[in-house]
Structure formats: C-alpha cells, structure tokens
C-alpha cells in the first residue's frame, strides 16, 4: 500500500494539468498549421486520431532519452551505454560513437546468467553448431529436436510438476494458452495489477473477466461467492469453469502474491489457479524453485504453473507446467505449439545448462552461491534505502524494488542525474503505472558485488537529496509518519 503525502499529490496533479494544457495549446497551433499547409492524406483517415497519441507526442517525447537506451555489451552488472544526441529537441535521437560504462540496475538479470558464462556458453556454442540457430519449423511439424524433449523434462523436474511444454516467447505463452483452456461460458478472475500478456490472453479467450483488488484474498472470496451465486450474465446459468489468475512477483510493486490464502480459497470454491512466475522462478526460494517453495505451497495444489526464462535463466521463452493430461491437451490444441516456430536450440541449451548450475548438477556450488547472494543483496539494498528515507515498495527477499517518485518532472531528473553519475536506472510512468504513482524500479542481480551496491547507494543518496524524493524521514527519527497522508492503493 502506498501512502502519498497531500502536498505531493497536489503538485503532481498540478504538473500533469500544466503539461496537458500546454499540449493542447501546441495541438491547436498544429491544427492551424496543418490547415494552412494543406493535408496530404488524399481521402484516407489519419492513422492516429486526435487524442490517441496525445500522450506520446506531448508528454513522452519530452523525456524520450530516458527510455530505450541502447547498450553495446551484454546486460551484465556493468554495461556499456551508447550515448545519443538529438538535433530536433528530442523528437528523434541518433546514436553516437561514444560509450559510457554504467552500473546496471535495470536489467532482469537475477542470477547473473546474462553474459557469457563459463559452464553454459561452451555448451550453447556446441548446440549451435549441431542444430543451427533455428529449426524453421513448428513444433508439430519438424521442429522438435531431442534437445526440446530434454528441455521439457528438465523444466518439469525443476518446477515440481509431472510434465511441461515450452514455447519460444513468454508473452505468447499467456496469450495463446488461456484461450485454449477457457472459453465462452467460463469466468476468469484476475488480479487488478496483472501483466499485459495475461490481460490480452484473458480478453482473447472470450470468457467473462472480473477483477479482484490487488493481493486481497478477502475480496477474491467475495467476488467468487457473488459470481457463483449469480451465474453467467443475463442467462444466470451456472459457470462452466472458473479460473483465478495471479502472479508470483508483481513486477511494478515488487510484492509477493499471498499464495497460501488464495490457493485455500480456490480449493474451497473449486476454482482453478493459474500462477504466472515470470519474475519469481529461479530468483526466490531456497533452491530457486519460485514462490511455491518460498511460501510453502504444494505444487500439486496449483493447477497451472507458467513462467518465463528471460529473467533468471538469461535466455528467452516461456513454459507451462501441469499434469500429463493437461500438457498433452496443450500439444494438441494450443496455437503457439502448432503454428509458431519452435524455440531456438541454443536458447534451449542455455536453459538446460542454467538449471543444471542452479541445482548444482554441474559439480560446483555456484548455483547455491548465486541464490544466497541475490537474497543477501536484495535485503541489504532494501534496508539501506529505507534507512535513508526513500519510499521503497516490495516484500523482503524480492529482488524487484520500486522507489516512488510521484511527480512527472522527477522522472527525467532522477534518470538523467543517475546517468551522469554512471548509474543506469529504469523509470516507469503512466500508462504502466497509475497516473500519480510514477516510480523508479531497481532490479538486483546476483552478479552485483557489495562495492557496486554501496556505490549505487551513495549516488542515490546524492541524487535523492538533489531532487527531493526522500519522502520518509531518514532513520532514526520516525515520529511524523502518520500526519496528513492520503492512502492510495
């Protein structure tokens, strides 16, 4: 839960209002200029109407240099950022040949597999030479190699389910699997802060979608009871099936899902649970098996486990794990299995090798060291930031740390000042977050050393004082925390 001070809320509204007014002025003048110069569309409707890209043109373009920064090295703990210049006031950006080496706090590199690894990379190159970068074919035609079958077994073992199926992209996994599992006449209840791929999959399935308040099992129970009692809209027939969609770690909040309570409720009301572990698999839990291990939930209670390999395994792709019948049915009906090119063989080999390192099957204890290090790093960084007075979200043990900024002007200020001090951060604003709650999101990796973190903390403290984002008083005096605050969820 985020509590925003009154003054900050006011100033944020005021800033956005001002930007909106200026944007409208400029649009008005542009309309006149267009009418004066004559349009060249010749009867076609414009491809972007009026207010659809207002946000892009008038707000986003001003701070465009904070997003999409190109890099010229692997996204490891230190990264080479390519500098860009703009000759037309930030409308377009050109690359220069200059490079600056920065501490990387933005890439999803939880276990440090992003760069070339001593165990994984030789094996990946071998599989590249054997199977070539692509099979050019769908899994069901001629795209299944022995490597793919091995990968599915290894993933199923790691996650703790009887069988698994692997796809080439995490986003497509959600969008193509949900329509195959549930259709018209079914009910989907999804968390209000779910990721865009889950929302897309739910919409594409044709089922009715209802939302429950973020991470509140009580509200979930209330919604379930109401919906079962009422039945389908208008006809009041009973629902065919009900599925509850939750995530392991929510990427914009850094919070863990309240899984034990949600699973208990779903068992009581006979709803199916779909858990998306994109950020939590490999990164939390004693042996890296995700949020089920951390919170002590039996994997047999969760019907469908989904995850991606981009974050902790340094590769690409997504998987679904469940019972053998479920996976068989997916292989028969899921469009991503039948129509999409199979996952690239070197990427598959990277996942297999990374899982072997995590489980210690490569003969060293590097995996256990990495897991311990990321836990230590996350807890250390979070507690230090909180001591300094920043407003940091997220639970303990979670490697994702959003730091609240609120005002739209602080977003580019924070990003650019940190860049001047050789620290690369990620800032997120509307529409990925609610309008008032802009934040900077920090992702800790197992490859960050203690010195890296201390340097980052120094830079944050300096920049935080400069732009005024230390909303909480720095410890040890914690008196005035509860006056004059507006609670926002």
């Amino acid at each position, binding site marked *: 839960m985020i509590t925003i001070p009154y003054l900050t809320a006011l100033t944020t509204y005021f800033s956005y209002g001002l930007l909106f007014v200026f944007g409208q002025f400029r649009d008005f003048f542009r309309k006149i200029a267009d009418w004066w110069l004559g349009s060249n569309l010749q009867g076609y409707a414009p491809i972007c109407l009026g207010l659809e890209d207002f946000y892009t043109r008038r707000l*986003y373009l001003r701070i465009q240099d904070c*997003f*999409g*920064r*190109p890099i010229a090295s*692997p996204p*490891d703990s230190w*990264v080479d950022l390519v500098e860009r210049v703009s000759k037309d006031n930030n409308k377009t950006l050109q690359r220069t040949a200059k490079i600056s080496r920065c501490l990387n706090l*933005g*890439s*999803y590199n939880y276990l440090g597999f*992003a760069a070339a690894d001593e165990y*994984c990379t030789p094996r990946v*190159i071998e599989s*590249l*030479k054997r*199977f*070539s*970068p*692509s099979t*050019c074919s769908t899994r*069901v*035609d*001629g795209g*299944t190699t022995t490597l793919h079958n091995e990968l599915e077994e290894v993933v199923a073992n790691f996650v703790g389910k009887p069988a698994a199926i692997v796809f*080439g*992209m*995490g*986003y*497509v996994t959600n*969008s*193509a699997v949900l329509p*195959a*599992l549930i259709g018209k006449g079914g009910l989907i209840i999804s968390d209000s802060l779910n990721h*865009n791929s889950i929302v*897309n999959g739910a919409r*594409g399935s044709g089922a009715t979608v209802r939302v429950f308040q973020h991470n509140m099992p009580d509200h979930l129970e209330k919604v379930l009871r109401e919906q*079962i*009692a009422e039945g389908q809209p208008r006809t009041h027939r009973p629902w065919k*099936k009900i599925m509850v969609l939750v995530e392991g770690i929510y990427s914009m909040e850094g919070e863990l899902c309240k899984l034990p309570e949600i699973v208990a409720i779903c068992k009581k*009301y006979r*709803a199916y649970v779909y858990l998306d572990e994109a950020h939590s698999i490999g990164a939390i839990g004693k042996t890296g098996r995700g949020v089920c291990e951390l919170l002590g939930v039996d994997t047999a209670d969760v019907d469908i486990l989904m995850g991606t390999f*981009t*974050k902790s*395994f340094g*590769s690409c792709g997504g998987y679904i794990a469940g019972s053998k019948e*479920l996976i*068989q*049915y997916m292989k*028969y*009906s*899921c*469009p*991503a299995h*039948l129509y*999409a*090119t199979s996952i*690239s063989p070197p990427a598959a080999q*990277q996942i297999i090798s990374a899982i072997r390192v995590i489980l210690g099957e490569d003969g060293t204890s590097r995996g256990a060291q990495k897991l311990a290090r990321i836990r230590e790093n996350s807890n250390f960084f979070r507690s230090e930031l909180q001591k300094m007075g920043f407003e940091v979200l997220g639970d303990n043990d979670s490697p994702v740390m959003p730091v609240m900024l609120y005002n739209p002007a602080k977003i580019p200020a924070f990003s650019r000042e940190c860049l001047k001090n050789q620290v690369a951060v*990620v800032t997120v604003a509307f529409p990925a977050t609610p309008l008032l709650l802009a934040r900077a999101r920090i992702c800790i990796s197992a490859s960050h050393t203690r010195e890296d973190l201390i340097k980052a903390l120094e830079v944050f403290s300096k920049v935080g004082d400069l732009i005024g984002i230390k909303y909480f008083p720095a410890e040890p005096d914690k008196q005035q925390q509860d006056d004059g605050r507006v609670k926002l969820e």
Partner: protein
Amino acid sequence: MASVAMDMLKAASDWLTFAFDAPFARAVVFGVNIGGHLFVEGLLVVVIIFLLSQKSYKPPKRPLTKKEIDELCDEWVPEPLIPKITDDMKYEPPALESAAGPHTLINGTEVINFASANYLGLVGHGKLLEACTRSLEKYGVGSCGPRGFYGTIDVHLDCEARIAKFLGTPDSILYSYGLSTMFSAIPAFCKKGDVIVVDEGVHWAIQNGLQLSRSTVVYFKHNDMESLRNMLEKVTQENKRAKKLRRYIVVEAVYQNSGQIAPLDEIVRLKEKYRFRVLLDESNSLGALGSTGRGLTEYCKVPVDKIDIITAAMGHALATEGGVCTGNARVIDHQRLSSSGYVFSASLPPYLATAAITAIDILEKNPDLITKLKKNVGTLWKGLSGIQGLEIASDPASPIVFLQLKKSTGSSKGDLQVLEEIAHRVLKEDTVFVATSRRSTLDKCKLPVGIRLFVSAAHTEDDLMKAGESLKRVAALALNGHD
C-alpha cells in the same frame, strides 16, 4: 342540535376567513399581492409534486442471504479443466537429432527433410554459424529486458536498419517472435469501430489480432478478387458518412494454409480506388519470391511504398527467429509505444538478430539461391504430376507445395487421418519427411487440410524426384482402399 352544529361550522369558517385575511397573509412579495388562498394552492402544488415523484410500485428487492449463497457455492460443480484425452490427441512428432537442413537424422536414419521452411538452405550455413558464435561469445544468449529498459542492443538497431535498406522502406521494427508480430501490429492500428476486410484463409495470428482489435471484420472468399471487390463496395456504401473511419485490407503474400499467392497488383488497384490501407504478411515470401528475394512487391512489380504495413516472420527463409514490421516512419514510431508485443515483452536475443543480418548479406551476395529455389519447385511439380488421389492446390511459384485430397472423406478429421497415414508411411518406408497441416481447435479457418512440402534451394534433384516417386507410390496404395 342542528343549530349547535351550524354554529360550530360558522365559527370554524369565520376562523378560517379570519386566518386567511390575517395581516401576514397580505404580504407583498416582488410587487405581487399574496392573498391567503395562495397558501392552499401552494400546498396542493406541493402534494402533486410529491405524488408524481413517487416511484411506481416495485416488489421489494431481496438479496440472497449468506446461507443461500453458501448452498449455491456447495452445489456448483465445474467442468474438468480439459476435455477427455482421445487417441488422436496423443500424436508425438518425430524428434530430430541434427540440424533441420535438407537432410536430417531421425532415429539414427538420414531422411530427406521437407518439413522445415528453410527456403534458401541457410540452416547449417558456415557464415551464419560463425557470426552467431561471435555474437554469443560477446553478448551471451538473452537480452534480459524489454526494448524500453536496456534491452535494446546495438545489433537490434543494426538489424532494423539493414532490413529496411534491403526492402527499400524508410524504417522497420523488430519483434521477438514471429507469431506475435501480426497480433500486436493489428491492434496497434485498428480500434473499435474501424473496418477490416480480410481473406478467410489467413492464419491464426492474424485472426487473434483481429479479435483483440475489436473492429468490424468482414471476410472475403479465399484469394478471390471478385469477392474482395464486392465486399469493398458493400463496406463503402454502408459507411459513407464516417470520415474518421480507418479501413484496412489484410492479406498474406503466400498463404500458409493453402500455398496460394495473393495478386498484389489487383489488390493495390482496388485499394486506391476505395481508399483502404493494406497490411501484407510476407512471412513465406521474404527471401523466396522476386528476382532478388525482396518478396511479393518485387514479384508483382508494385512499388513497395504503396503497401502501408508489411510484416514478416523471420523463421522461414532467413533461418532465424523473430519478426519484423516495416512501413513509413509514422507507422513504425507509433508501434514503439503502443504495440503490446513490443513494449511488454523482452527483446530478441542478440545472436538471432546477428543471424538475420548475416542471412540478408548472404542473400544479397548470392541471388542465384532464388533461381535455384524456383527450379527446385518446378522439378517437384514435375515429379508429383500424375499423382493419384491428391492434387496440388498451391500456386506454381510458391515455395510451399500443398497437396489436397481430390475427394474428401467428408470430415476434416477423416481427411487428416488419411493424410497422416500417407505421411507416416512415406517416412517409414522411403525416408522422406513431410508434414500434414494440423489445425488448432481455436482456428476459424475453413480451408481443407493437406500435406505441405517446403521446398529448399539446398535440395538436390535426386531428393525431389525421390520425394515425388515415394508420394505417388504411397498415395496410390493408401487411397485405393478409400475410393
């Protein structure tokens, strides 16, 4: 008695008259004399308003009690998560043990591979492997982030520039998966209320994109220009007033479900007449059609800037993974913020982007790969002529050769069983690996199923003749019993 009542009545009326004629009743408000009777009238008006504002009688709402909800929840039983598994669901494809080139290893035996869309024979090419190895050593495998958050690596920008230069368009944008290209590009431009005219044989990704865009979708008969013209006519008649309405035609260059080629010059003529924008999916024609491999626009001699949006999955001729979308600068810039498969997903692994750049370099240096591919398709057609029970339903220039049953068994499930038997026997007995076209339960396309052969420039003439003979033999055996 009566006089007492009369007296009382008189007293009451006297009192009333007195009350109404009392001084306060003669107040002057706004220059109007208020007499006492106005109070009665005022009271009546208030009563009328009160009665009118009362709602009509409704039976009182009785929400369900907690006990009733508990009972309903107890007696509700959901359907099982998946339907019962039948035998035809248990199909397992054969597992390859080597690269998916023109020859591959299945179960220890070498087979001729017609199931990979490896049109230019770049799978296993030395230069490609070298470039990828260098890239893997430098960048590792994954890119660990979406494009907006440090997932943009300089090879991505180089790849986008290279593809744009190759096709002759101003700019291009790279997606991390071929399937997500179309179903992210369509909802970025088509919103509720827009009109889309689309061929009925398009593949699932386009259908999903149309569904997510919530626009009005109109289908026309597969590859039939007459039907397209009628649909365009109908749509323009119905929507004359809406000037802000965006109208699109969506077609594929070489249809994955049937191997037909879309007549692009005809479509461009119609588009200009009726003012529609064209979205072209060139997955199977990039690198395969046209004298230098630039796709359908070169093949039909249409200038590429007449097509508004071109998308292509790179998992076919270019022997890599991912997808690309090209068009003018406005179109591409809009997608960088509003295309969900680009913004909310991790970017393409850098070694695959390097593979794409190398593939295009190889293609530009060796245009004879295209002529070889054309020759191979011709040889296969010759080898398959006179086949019993099956007919070739694809275009003679398309690199996908699509065989359909001459006489269908009546249901697409039955057709699929016959075709699978043929494919299985061809693999077992003659070591030729072909694929049948399987449909998902979510697919809305109604075109018939068939056997697909992907011809590659790396196939030798012997390979093709062997495939032709083998198919002829097995088809004759298998279909004699089904006549």
